[in-house]
């Protein structure tokens, strides 16, 4: 193999008392795709931010093509030929594609060099098969296209090494294939690529070599990812074997939640049309479907945020009258919303406050109309311990927690009051294996206790593993329901495109 394009030697970076990176060595050769694996909080993003100049390392050297370089900011990194596609895109939505590319590029005789920019854009399009309409505002692009723009932006600046921080987290499965094809073509032309992910099957499919981080240190290196099993890699990431949870056979009891002929209107997204479904005690019902087929409206109706236009809903035999979150909660419904940051909790308030938010006025947390801070704190401390929520304490700003810990906090908040039925959307999106496994185990334990759970999700593998029955949504209707014995990824996939529905009607 030729001389490394980039070499990081003994990189150490601390935030206060936390060592985010400790003596990390890493190198990438031209034409190589390196996988950087690790659980959330293992230090992958910190390491790449050091390489890109966003953080200054406490110790260690960075070598570009054998020469040591000092990278103090992103301008230095760009000059050294390092480009980065961040998890949250660095684009200005209201400026055009071309303007986003030309930012920071010196002009020609005092003007923005549009002609030069267009020519370069076309050249990149030819070379790597990446093209975009230059005069569209970025806000008009899909997420996949915005990511493509970020990649083009890096190439535009002459990047020889491209860092992609969890690029597939935001993509639909079909878009992932396109991204991988583009990355392979770039590597074939001699670019180095660092691919950060915690999705093992993707890493095995794409990368030539892997570095696994755990607690900020290199936990292992994998030289042939394609011939290494996911279980071996997972063990490196977590430090212990990951055993997939088993779903014990069970006999479901009576229905705990029933929807009968629910239709909605006037809602952002696809409205529901005559939706009927039920979930029984000791049962997990999955709701599959391509996103935007009414899942949001379904979650909002069940959690009391969207009163339906027609139809009835019952919880534990009682008909819902008002469709307010408070009423549903009183009837025994728990909910974990899709967007942890906006509808889940209040990011600027202490974690403890968010953890009692749905029950803030109840006797458990208030006395004579005044909050009982001691009780709130005690509750939060108890849950933090019980669910191993990693945070400095109950009074930390909720927004400072990582995704996995936030999800645990939300789960703790709902499960502490043992709801009869729980509705949850995208329970493990963005979480690493360890955190996801923890959440799955909690769901299965609830099921074993005779509770009902509705899981709305896009990850079919996850639904197949967890659910007793899976209903598929298509254009606001239930296109069909399969039992776990009959459901396969292929059958569900077909139903999600509407094919199953027409078959049924014919």
């Amino acid at each position, binding site marked *: 193999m030729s001389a490394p394009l980039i070499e990081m030697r003994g990189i150490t970076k601390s*935030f206060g008392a936390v060592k985010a990176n400790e003596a990390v060595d890493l190198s990438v050769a031209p034409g190589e795709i390196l996988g950087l694996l690790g659980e959330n909080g293992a230090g992958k993003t910190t390491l790449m931010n050091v390489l*890109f100049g*966003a*953080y200054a390392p406490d110790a260690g050297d960075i070598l570009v093509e054998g020469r040591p370089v000092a990278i103090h*900011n*992103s*301008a230095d990194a*760009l*000059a050294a030929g390092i480009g*980065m596609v*961040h998890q949250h*895109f*660095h*684009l*200005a*939505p*209201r*400026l055009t594609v071309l*303007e*986003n590319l*030309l*930012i*920071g*590029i*010196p*002009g020609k005789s*005092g*003007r*923005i060099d549009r002609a030069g920019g267009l020519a370069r854009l076309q050249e990149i399009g030819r070379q790597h098969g990446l093209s975009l309409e230059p005069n569209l505002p970025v806000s008009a692009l899909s997420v996949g296209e915005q990511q493509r723009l970020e990649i083009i*932006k890096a190439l535009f*600046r002459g990047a020889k090494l491209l860092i992609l921080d969890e690029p597939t987290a935001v993509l639909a499965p079909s878009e992932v294939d396109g991204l991988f094809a583009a990355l392979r073509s770039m590597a074939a032309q001699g670019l180095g690529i660092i691919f950060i992910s915690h999705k093992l099957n993707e890493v095995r499919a794409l990368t030539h070599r892997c570095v696994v981080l755990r607690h900020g240190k290199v936990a292992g290196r994998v030289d042939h990812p394609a011939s290494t099993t996911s279980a071996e890699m997972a063990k490196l990431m977590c430090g212990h074997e990951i055993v997939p949870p088993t779903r014990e056979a069970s006999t479901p009891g009576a229905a705990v939640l029933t929807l009968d002929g629910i239709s909605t209107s006037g809602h952002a997204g696809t409205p529901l049309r005559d939706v009927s479904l039920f979930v029984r005690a000791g049962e997990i019902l999955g709701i599959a479907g391509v996103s935007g087929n009414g899942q949001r409206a379904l979650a909002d109706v069940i959690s009391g945020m969207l009163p339906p236009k027609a139809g009835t809903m019952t919880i534990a035999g009682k008909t819902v009258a008002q469709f307010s979150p408070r009423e549903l909660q009183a009837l025994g419904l728990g909910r974990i919303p899709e967007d942890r940051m906006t509808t889940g909790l209040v990011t600027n308030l202490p974690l403890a406050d968010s953890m009692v938010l749905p029950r803030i006025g109840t006797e458990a947390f208030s006395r004579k109309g005044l909050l009982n801070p001691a009780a709130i704190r005690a509750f939060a401390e108890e849950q933090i311990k019980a669910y191993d929520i990693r945070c400095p304490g109950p009074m930390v700003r909720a927004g400072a927690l990582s995704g996995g810990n936030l999800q645990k906090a939300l789960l703790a908040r709902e499960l502490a009051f043992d709801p009869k039925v729980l509705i949850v959307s995208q329970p493990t999106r963005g979480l690493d294996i360890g955190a996801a496994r923890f959440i799955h185990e909690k769901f299965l334990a609830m099921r074993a206790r005779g509770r009902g759970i509705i899981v709305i999700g896009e990850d079919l593998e996850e639904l197949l593993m967890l659910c007793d029955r899976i209903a598929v949504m298509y254009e606001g209707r239930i296109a069909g329901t399969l039992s776990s014995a009959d459901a396969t990824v292929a059958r569900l996939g077909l139903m999600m495109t509407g094919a199953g529905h027409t078959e049924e009607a014919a």
Partner: protein
Amino acid sequence: MSAVFEQIFQVGFLAAIIRIATPLAFATLGEMFSERAGVLNLGIEGIMLLCAMAGFTAASLSGSLWLGVLVAVLVGALMGALHALFTVALGLSQHVCGIGVTLFCSGLAYFLYRLIFGQQSVPPSIDGFKPVPIPLLTDIPILGPAVFNQFTLVYLAIIAVPLAAFVLYRTPWGLSVRMVGENPRAADSAGVSVIATRFQAVILGGALMGLAGAFLTMAQFNAFTFGVVSGRGWVAIALVVFGRWDPWRSAGAALLFAFVDALQLRMQASGLGHIPYEAFLMLPFIFTIVAMAFMSRNAVAPSALLKPFRREER
């Protein structure tokens, strides 16, 4: 009624609109540059007052009007730098600092004016700028004498609008300004200094506000009074929103406001004397509020407006 209208719509009326619009245009463009970079500058009212005073004083003491203009521009740029120091470098609240700058500048203007000129029953005045007719162009019927027989500063304002649009939309610096106002992180990761770009934009904005102040005391009134700005700075902030943060639209907004203001001045002077003049004075402001209510609904501010930028945040 027709007699009233005849009295209103004539060459002098058109010329008045242009004259009233000029300081508003400078101020609006100044505020626009600052806000496009993500910095609201509520110091505008005070900066205009201080610059009006500083320019007037310099001109009055030196006898050179252009030296006065230069001093006003420099003082405006300096006050812009002061606002940027608080809001950009230190990342403090833009609202609070802006109001602070206005109070500081107003107080300083009163204080220095009293110190230099003392208490006088008739405020001292200067021999201000004279209209400079542009040959040939003045001969265009109606438009000629109204637009091309004006102060040099008016011509400067007319040139400033396309120039601002060119700088904002066609130069790399203008793109940087728009980018740091929309997504500073994107600009930062592209190697653009967010802090420097914001400083430059706020300073340029302050200099333009200085021009607005200079026009008031050296062309429009030729004297300094404590009420010389009388809310024009606040109006400019509204006009930026009304003009959707665009130089052309902002200039149009300034013209529209000037039209209503000129109209109410004429109405005061015309036969409608039985109505108290204060009622007419209110008109431009009522117009601003109504226009804002209707026109600004789908106006979208720069995304990063009011948000300080810090790099190593975790």
